[in-house]
């Protein structure tokens, strides 16, 4: 079902497109709210993922997403047929 999805790399791309922000050190365990993006920019980033991957992350699941890995796991649950990079 297509190539595997690398959420960390996609996150870097999203942060650049949405907030003009470069995150070369981004890791799966990075806590998203420490990246210096304001809450609106973070939601715009979530929207970027939703559009690229054609998913809708339910609002109430957002509060549980702390790290990039949490985001990856949430998206992976929504797209059970796709492969995700570790």
């Amino acid at each position, binding site marked *: 079902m297509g190539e595997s999805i690398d959420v960390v790399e996609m996150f870097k791309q999203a942060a650049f497109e949405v907030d003009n922000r470069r995150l070369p050190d981004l890791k799966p365990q990075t806590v998203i709210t420490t990246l210096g*993006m304001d*809450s609106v920019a973070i939601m715009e980033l979530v929207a970027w993922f939703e559009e690229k991957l054609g998913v809708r992350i339910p609002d109430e699941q957002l509060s549980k997403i702390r790290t990039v890995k949490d985001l990856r796991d949430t998206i992976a649950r929504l797209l059970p047929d796709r492969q995700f990079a570790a």
Partner: protein
Amino acid sequence: MIGVVPALNACEGEHLRGFTFLGAKGPGEDLFVSFHDLRLSAQRRAAHYAAAGLRRGDRVALVVPEGEHFIPAFLGALWGGLIPVPLYPPVSLGKLDAFMEALVGILNIARPRVLVTTERVGKVLWSAVGRIASIEKVITTEELAKHAGSFPAAADVRDDEIAFLQFTSGSTALPKGVMVTHGSLVANCRAIVREGLEADGAKDKAVSWLPLYHDMGLIGFVIAPVCYRISVVFIPTMSFIKNATLWMETIHKHRATLSFAPNFAYALVTKRAKPEQIARWDLSQMRVFGCGAEPINPGTMRAFLQAMAPAGLKPEALLPCYGMAEATLAISFVPLDEPLQTDRIDAERYHADHEAAPVSNGSAFLEVVSCGRTFVGHEVTVQDDDGRILPERHIGGICFRGPSLTAGYWENPEATQAAFRGGWLHTGDLGYKVGDRVFVSGRIKDILIVNGRNYHPQGIEWLVNEIPGVRKGSSVVFTRPGAASEEIVVAAEARADDAAALVSEEFQLAVSDVALVPPGTLPKTSSGKLQRRKTREQYLNGSIGRTSRLGSTRLAVAKHLALSLVGRARHEVRKLLGG
């Protein structure tokens, strides 16, 4: 002039006007609920509440993100004479623990017998619910939508009865629930719709993305429209945050005439709207773009008007207003057809003499937005600390009285007496009057007194926000005790090396310390406003800015900065190489 319950009851037969919920039936599929059907769905919820044993005056907590589920659950509680308590849902990223703490704090004060939520949100909330002794039952909106027994008659509520509790976004440690009465609702809705907006449900249509657990969204776009049968299109708040241009897009598509939002939303949409979108939009029919709920930055307003001018937006559509939950919602509106008016006052005389003197040539000035005038039967005065009414252009505490006054704070007589004294609501805002026009210039509690002069942190914060490297809207200015006088401290998220120099230059005010903190760590209220007092407390007790973490924080900031400079340098090189 009738109350919201009788008004809802009178909606029988109103099939053409009603509420539209964007995307509520699926992506791109909107849900329209006529006022006739809204009345029926409120009655059905009231029947469920009655079957659950709820009686008049019982509190019902509502944690429901979707407008199409929230509104019937809320109106159903009003129908039965219950007291709904709207609460914000857990929707911001990674903030579950802080959310739960705030939720438990409010629920312990409101003591609801029932919590209404959705099946999905309920799964997140269950751990908090167990900690609230008063909650006997959790009812989901899915259950409320099911068939119910015979519908109860509308409760015959008196004007002085509490309609709902509006928890204000003050400190999360001591939340205060404003007691909005049926009488104050009627008075304020009439003032807003008839006097402020001169709205007519046959011609007007409103668009709102505002959250429904706050006064502007709930009263302005649910209760007032039900009372006057004005159709409203609701954009889910999260959809707006994710894509701010949806706000203008929806106004354009629905030929809407009325909308309100806080200052930040105007800044966001101005930033996000692309010229080709603006060229496509027609905003010429918009009568009112209301702006309130947070300090109004004249620069933001002018930038918005300029950006949207190609879409035919009339400058006089912009309508600054002033209000607060303690006044039900609205205190003053700029008259319709009056363009943005600001007052340029002499900064020196403002700080030193507490007077708002029109600026003379060349002097430093402050620019304050006119928030218009109050409504018939209501009064705004500016008072000194002893309750004496000050003459015009004298700075003092803004006070308000009239039928829109709420009944104070739920089970908090101390706070009620502090804010509602001598028949006046003491708003806690500083300002002045010119004729009947109200100008709001700052918050009393936040005022900075340095060497006997008063400064408002807002103006300094706006300046700090302009510094490259500072996260927009993430700086807090406050004072610390100094040797001779109070000293100014700037706390900002991210890099703010230049803050001290810039503030000194602009305000002739020395900055004694700049505390850099990691992004997302300055204390905020439930609605995301920075908490100046709490930041100050944390600074003074050493938990931010001056701890041993300071070194590592500064290091991290420096490292981050170095990396972003490397990134920028690479970008510049690539540009030079044409790649």
